């Protein structure tokens, strides 16, 4: 029984993780963000036609809203649609599945890092650390957020971590190196930041273990692995220099000063010392390091968190506040404790490498791009907790602190409920594009003879409409030509007008649209109450956010009234000009 205790505990931890991620999956966050809907509809299109909505057969990166989304997540949705339908639950399911699978991978990885440490084997330090790290990952707000929503970074993290695990296993069983290459090979196209982290960690691991890898037994499998890795990444490499592939990187990185000057740029200064004072060599270097260090700073980790409304929960940071002293102590232990060299090496390597892709982009503390950092930071916190606990000598103090720990954990789980379910639904509904499900169900009940114009002046909504209406992808492809398929990755033209049967998504043209008998759909800014009153529009329905604010209005135009108004206006003008 004792032999299997750690596996039983791991099973319990996985169960907790499942409950925390599966509860209201697809319902909370309420709404479906445009990127989620876009990925879901691309997957639906692949399933039905073998092509995406722009007619490209099995793309390497998905054009979508001309932001060229990574492919792995979308292809993972495809087989789930026949099982669960085209629903928000389905598009978020791969995130859930892979966030759960990451937990045992982390367990076996940490255990493996302690395999050779005889001195620590007796106290089962490695096993305890593995279980605690897995438990903290199971209740981590950072990991839960990306395990409940459609974000590719979580899936990528699983493949990346599995690659590391199989690499370490491969040091003993060389055949496993092939599995490692397979996992790393999938991780690279799975998410943008992995294009930097994975090769970087692979290089670091190779340098560290080059003697083992280049010996007679390993060499053969190393070559097989390199070939396999190359074959898997070949499609990605084939489009690596296209504008589509580079679209995200060029728009966001701190080295590009086309749209935004570096932080600290003194625009008012044009003097002789300008190349020094405003030199990009100086400002960009400083900006990179300031962003980089923010990922390791307790202020962001335990208090501020990610400022993005979709990449954070209200009143909750990326880590729980109570973990702060353990993080500080854990860093000290990581750097000073003996007999943990393998753990120390990998944790430090991950701590150093993980923030790099996020730090080269301008957004402050973006948890999506730096998700792999959750692993070393949780290991550090676990290390701090275990070390402090092992230092407690008196039984009573030990028991009391254990009870206190349980109480804090229960409070943390309740806090998750408060932030993820209660507050997020109320405050973040707009950020999650809440309301399109209701809008599409209203659309289905409207007069089918009349056209519908959906305003997209502020944000594109065609993915949500096509998604919820389960619009035939073949028809969509025919009605919405954007670029020839041979220019799919190279031509960045975006056709903002989309046709979904009778529905067209484009900015409302009030002058022309009021003269046609049709439905108009827009948010509160697009169709105000004043406009309804002025143009005598017929209010069909209003969709409200959970806080009571108006999300969308659906109105029917009144062309007779508009024409009459125009006629009166013209005649008044003529009278003013002196014509009878």
């Amino acid at each position, binding site marked *: 029984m004792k032999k299997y205790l750690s596996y039983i505990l791991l099973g319990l931890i996985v169960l907790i993780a499942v409950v925390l991620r599966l509860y209201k999956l697809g319902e909370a966050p309420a709404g479906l963000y445009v990127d989620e809907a876009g990925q879901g509809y691309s997957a639906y299109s692949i399933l039905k036609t073998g092509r995406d909505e722009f007619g490209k057969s099995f793309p390497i990166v998905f054009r979508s809203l001309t932001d060229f989304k990574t492919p792995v997540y979308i292809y993972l949705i495809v087989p789930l649609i026949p099982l669960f339908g085209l629903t928000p639950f389905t598009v978020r399911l791969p995130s859930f599945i892979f966030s759960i699978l990451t937990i045992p991978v982390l367990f076996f990885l940490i255990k493996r890092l302690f395999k050779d440490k005889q001195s620590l084997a007796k106290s089962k330090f490695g096993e305890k650390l593995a279980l605690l790290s897995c438990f903290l990952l199971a209740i981590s707000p950072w990991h839960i957020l990306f395990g409940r929503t459609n974000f590719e970074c979580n899936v990528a993290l699983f493949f990346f971590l599995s690659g590391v695990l199989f690499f370490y296993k491969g040091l003993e069983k060389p055949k496993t190196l092939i599995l490692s290459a397979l996992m790393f090979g999938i991780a690279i196209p799975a998410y943008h930041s992995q294009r930097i982290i994975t090769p970087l960690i692979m290089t670091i691991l190779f340098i560290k273990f080059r003697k083992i890898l280049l010996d007679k037994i390993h060499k053969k499998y190393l070559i097989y692995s390199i070939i396999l890795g190359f074959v898997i990444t070949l499609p990605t490499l084939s489009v690596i220099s296209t504008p589509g592939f580079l679209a995200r990187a060029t728009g966001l990185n701190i080295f590009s000063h086309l749209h935004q000057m570096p932080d*600290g740029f003194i625009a008012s200064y044009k003097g002789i010392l300008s190349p020094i004072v405003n030199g990009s060599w*100086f400002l960009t270097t*400083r900006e990179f390091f*300031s*962003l980089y260090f923010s990922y390791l*700073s307790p*202020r962001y980790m335990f208090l501020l968190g990610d400022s993005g409304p979709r990449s954070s929960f209200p009143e909750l940071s990326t880590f729980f*506040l109570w973990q702060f002293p353990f993080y500080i102590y854990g860093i000290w232990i990581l750097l000073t404790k003996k007999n943990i060299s393998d753990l120390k090496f990998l944790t430090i390597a991950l701590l150093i490498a993980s923030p790099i892709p996020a730090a080269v982009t301008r957004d*402050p*503390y973006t948890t999506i791009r730096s998700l792999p950092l959750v692993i070393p930071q949780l290991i550090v916190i676990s290390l701090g907790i275990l070390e402090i606990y092992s230092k407690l000598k008196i039984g009573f103090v030990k028991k009391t602190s254990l009870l206190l720990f349980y109480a804090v954990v229960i409070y943390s789980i309740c806090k998750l409920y408060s932030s993820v379910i209660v507050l997020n639904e109320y405050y973040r509904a707009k950020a999650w594009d809440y309301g399109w499900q209701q809008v599409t169900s209203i659309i289905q009940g409207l007069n089918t003879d009349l056209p519908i114009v959906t305003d997209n002046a502020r944000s594109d909504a065609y993915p949500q409409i096509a998604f919820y209406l389960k619009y035939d992808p073949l028809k969509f492809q025919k009605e919405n030509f954007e670029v020839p398929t041979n220019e799919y990755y190279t031509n960045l033209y975006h056709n903002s007008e989309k046709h979904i049967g009778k529905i067209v998504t484009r900015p409302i043209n009030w002058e022309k649209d009021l003269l046609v008998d049709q439905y108009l759909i827009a948010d509160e800014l697009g169709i105000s109450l004043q406009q309804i009153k002025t143009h005598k529009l017929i209010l069909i329905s209003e969709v409200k956010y959970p806080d009571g604010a108006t999300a969308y209005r659906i109105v029917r135009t009144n062309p007779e009234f508009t024409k009459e108004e125009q006629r009166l206006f013209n005649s008044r003008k003529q009278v003013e000009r002196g014509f009878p």
Partner: protein
Amino acid sequence: MNYFKKIVIVFCIILWPLNLLLNFKGNTSFETIFTNDYQGEQLILRNIHLYPTIALARVFQNKPRIYIYKFFNNLFILTDPNNYFFGLHPEPIPGQNNIFKYQFVAIVFFAYGIFSISKYKYKNIILFTFIPFVLFLSILKNFYGLDLILWIPISLTIGNGVTQMMIDNKKLFTVTSILLIVFAVPELIRSFIR
């Protein structure tokens, strides 16, 4: 080499007093975070009705939370390396002159100083000044300008880092020092331009 070390230390620690002298904008006050916060209380009242029961709501939405948040907000700013080396970028305090306190390359010496603090003869001065000062400043509503008292322990730590690195690893010391001086030049000029 000792002369060079002194130059490096001066380049490391001069920025904060200089920037404060040249660019001091704002009010210093000893008002604490425990003053009444009407907006914070209203937000709590608004949030309470979102929970299934009042009892549950009170666990997460209560008055002490306002002060706890303010305290930790100050504490984390005062212990954030970005506050000292990067003018609190990328999330500065809104409406405040977030000055650059140390040249950013000095963070290397600072880190080195912390990890070799056990060898330092002034370690007790650092500990017994930094911790109480930080706790005191954390309960102030606005510690702008008053936080200069932390210049002493932080500068001592950096000084210790410079000295220890010079003893332990001369090559690393030379490279870091050259980088520090190269990047310190624009930083110092900027202090006068602002």
